[in-house]
C-alpha cells in the first residue's frame, strides 16, 4: 500500500444503491466493491433507495432464471465491517414494502460482547439527506 494509505486517512464511504437486483448486474458488482472496500479500514455505510430497496427483499431465488444468486452475500455485510445499512422509508412505501419484507441483516458488536445487532436502519428522506451530505466518498451503483 502507498504511503498515504499507511498514514491512516479514514473517510466516510457511502455506497448508494438505487437499482433493482436482477434486471442489471449493477447491484452485484456494487456489492463486490463494498466487500473489497472493507479491507481498507474505512468507515463504510450502505444506502438503499428507490428501486435499490428491492435488493434487500427477503426470499430471492434465482434458480429458475439461471443467474448467480448473490442475495446471500448481503448477509455477509456485517462480517465485512459494514455497521450501518440505511433504507429510505419513502422508497419502501412507494413500492408497497415494509421493513418486514427485508432480509434480516445483523452484525456482531465487538464493543458490546459481540452481541448480534440489526444492521438495517429505516430512515426518512430527511435523514437520508443528512447521511448523504455527511459522507466523504459517494459511490453509486
Amino acid at each position, binding site marked *: 500500500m502507498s504511503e498515504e494509505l499507511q498514514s491512516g486517512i479514514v473517510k466516510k464511504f457511502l455506497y448508494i444503491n438505487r437499482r433493482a437486483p436482477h434486471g442489471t448486474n449493477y447491484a452485484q458488482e456494487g456489492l463486490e466493491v463494498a466487500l473489497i472496500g472493507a479491507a481498507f479500514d474505512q468507515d463504510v455505510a450502505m444506502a438503499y433507495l428507490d428501486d435499490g430497496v428491492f435488493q434487500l427483499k427477503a426470499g430471492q431465488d434465482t434458480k429458475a432464471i439461471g443467474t448467480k444468486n448473490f442475495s446471500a452475500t448481503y448477509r455477509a455485510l456485517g462480517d465485512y465491517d459494514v455497521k450501518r445499512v440505511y433504507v429510505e422509508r419513502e422508497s419502501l412505501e412507494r413500492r408497497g414494502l415494509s421493513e418486514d419484507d427485508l432480509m434480516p441483516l445483523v452484525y456482531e458488536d465487538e464493543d458490546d460482547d459481540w452481541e448480534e445487532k440489526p444492521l438495517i436502519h429505516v430512515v426518512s428522506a430527511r435523514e437520508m*439527506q443528512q447521511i*448523504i451530505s455527511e459522507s466523504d*466518498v*459517494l459511490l453509486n451503483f
Partner: protein
Amino acid sequence: MLHVVNKSPFEKNCLESCARLSQAGSCILLIEDGVYGALADGEACEVVQTCLEDRQVCVLGEDLQARGIEPDRIVSGVEVVDYAGFVKLAVEHPKVQSWL
C-alpha cells in the same frame, strides 16, 4: 455538495430523487439527457423551479447544444456552464454525487 443528474426526467426518476435528497445550498448540474429536465415548457420545470428556491441549478451547455436546445428554452434561473465550469463546480463543492 454537487449533484449530477444525467437522465431525462421523462424516462427515469433521478432528477426527482436528487430533488428529494439534496440539501439547501447544494448545486444540481444537469448533463447528458439530464438537460431535458431544464426545458421551461416541459413537465419537469416545476421540480427544477422548486430546487431553484434554495439550490443552484446548472446545465451543461455542450449537452444542450448537442440536443438542439437553445438557452432561451430553459427554465429561467438555471445557469449554463461548460466543461470548465463543471470542473469549477466540482472544486467549489467538497463532494460530488452522481444520480446514475
